[in-house]
């Protein structure tokens, strides 16, 4: 996984609440057996008009947001299905950071598995950033995971909270499975205890 330390990037504002993962990437793109190449499916139904041509009113089709690396959006982003194709598609589009007042739990978790930093800011902070990002072309933000800050072009800093463990894993780009495997002895001890306390969970289901 790619580490995330700090970045400065162009902001793309998606001014909608409750954006669900079916919108982020519709079902027809879930048939893949790969993690890559999902950019084409990102916001697929919103990106196109009924005749299939690109909808110029959709934010990611507008020249001013080309090359954006920070997605700014509203409450409950990523709700619904657990599909990790959602962060894969965002990453494939070039987004490394999503800023919102709140995220759905599973999506929030999935971001960390893929080197994407989800930043929770207060509603009024997002409101002010949204206004600025919509109002001025080329609007960018600096995000610093180490300092846990989002800094505006005018120098205003917004601090965000993040679990220390998650932060460390993302900051160093750690392989989380490798990290868990370091605790193999503890897992083995637990498993032996569980086997004696709940032996009915250790019968071979294939027999």
């Amino acid at each position, binding site marked *: 996984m790619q580490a995330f330390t700090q970045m400065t990037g162009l902001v793309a504002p998606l001014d909608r609440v*409750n954006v669900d993962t079916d919108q982020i990437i519709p079902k027809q793109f879930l*048939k893949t057996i790969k993690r890559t190449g999902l950019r084409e499916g990102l916001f697929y139904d919103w990106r196109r008009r009924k005749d299939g041509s690109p909808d110029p009113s959709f934010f990611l089709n507008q020249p001013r947001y080309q090359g954006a690396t920070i997605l700014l959006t509203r409450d*409950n982003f990523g709700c619904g299905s*657990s*599909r*990790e194709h959602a962060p894969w598609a965002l990453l494939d589009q070039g987004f490394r950071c999503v800023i919102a007042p709140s995220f759905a*739990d599973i999506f929030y*978790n999935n971001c960390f598995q893929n080197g994407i930093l989800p930043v929770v800011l207060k509603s009024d902070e997002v409101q002010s950033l949204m206004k600025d990002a919509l109002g001025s072309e080329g609007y960018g933000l600096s995000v610093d995971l180490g300092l846990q800050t989002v800094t505006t072009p005018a120098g205003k800093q917004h601090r965000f909270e993040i679990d220390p463990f998650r932060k460390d894993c993302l900051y160093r780009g750690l392989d989380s499975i490798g990290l868990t495997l370091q605790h193999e002895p503890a*897992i083995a001890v637990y498993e032996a205890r569980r086997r004696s306390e709940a032996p009915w969970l250790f019968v071979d289901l294939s027999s």
Partner: protein
Amino acid sequence: MSGQTLFDKIWDSHVVRAEPDGTTLLYIDRQLVHEVTSPQAFEGLKLAGRRPRRPSATLAVPDHNVPTTDRRLAIADPISAKQIQTLEDNCREFGITLFGMNDIRQGVVHVIGPEQGFTLPGTTIVCGDSHTSTHGAFGALAFGIGTSEVEHVLATQCLVQKRPKTMEIRVDGTLSDRCSAKDVILAIIGRIGTAGGTGYVIEYTGSAISALSMEGRMTLCNMSIEGGARAGMVAPDDRTVAYIKGRPLAPKGDLFDQAVKAWRQLKTDADAKYDATVTLRADDIAPQVSWGTSPGMVTGVDGRVPDPRTMGDEKTRKATERALEYMGLTANMPITDIRIDKVFIGSCTNSRIEDLRLAAGFAKGKKVAKTVHAMVVPGSGLVKQQAEEEGLDRVFREAGFEWREAGCSMCLAMNADVLQPGERCASTSNRNFEGRQGAGGRTHLVSPAMAVAAAVEGHFVDIRNWG
């Protein structure tokens, strides 16, 4: 020391180790796997040269992509076929039990887990699917995960988790005649909102919950995620034990007795505290119909489509306006004036034998309206078999419903069962998101009984005084 909630008991008994900040390495007893969210996990294992830690703790089944028409024919969509083939190949390579597409035990992953006795009280259960919350009906801690975590559990039988908060949703009283668990959960989501449960595990309590059948409890827990909670649970009782007993993968003999003894401890202590509590009166719950593009956009069938002009909050107003435009509805119109084109009875929410019995009871002797196309998709091959033994298929067919093979089908329309743009569907599934059942399709979430009545009348009707 104050007592523990049901959640606390299960969580604490699965802690392998904890980081200083409370991040926990949690042991996972069982994992369910389906074809859509697993290929990249197995690929990850292969690339890293890892093997599953306990292949026998995992059960796999294809459900999302499978056709609900004649299975003897090859799958028309080569990409769907490849995904299902990939699951079969991976299960063979890694020694994981698979119920293949032509196995009578095949079905929606959240239907077959309980049906087989794979889902047990007091366990931690995960699946790369947000509706894993369904299994909480048995007093298990069950939640959906992403594909990276599917790989994590395969490799380590553990997950790194932050302890969630607990929310009690207490429903006392008696549900009115013909209202069901589906109406209860839709009413709950209407109350707490689609993010109300974010960061929480919900425990459903109260006399109206205890009165629910296991199927009803599954319907209830299934949609916890639509209220933002990754997991929902109901404490196990006699009904739970009776449901599990004798199922193919359930413990047998002395082991069963030993398990039941442990399961009896799985309840919230009288002096335990929840982080939040929400209460509802079952008597106040009317049959529910969603009118918008988020499950929280829901009202009683005796209500009206809301008017965004009366809404103070700008974000809510904008979201409502957008939803009404997408759904092709006008403010203030009575719900019973909404005409439908399609009816879908199925999904991990409402496709179990009890759902089908109930739906067939209402369909008996009736005819689906000429303007409506209606289908019934059983949750598993075994549900289908049982329904056919009971003659339910004949009732549905005679009423003009199509009777299909088991699978996820039109709940998310990954197979050929898709809404056309602008088509309006009364659906017993769980999500009414834009395009969920097909690009441009319009979904109204309802109970099986409400779906049957809508199929017959061509528009929504109040099931309480119908037929």
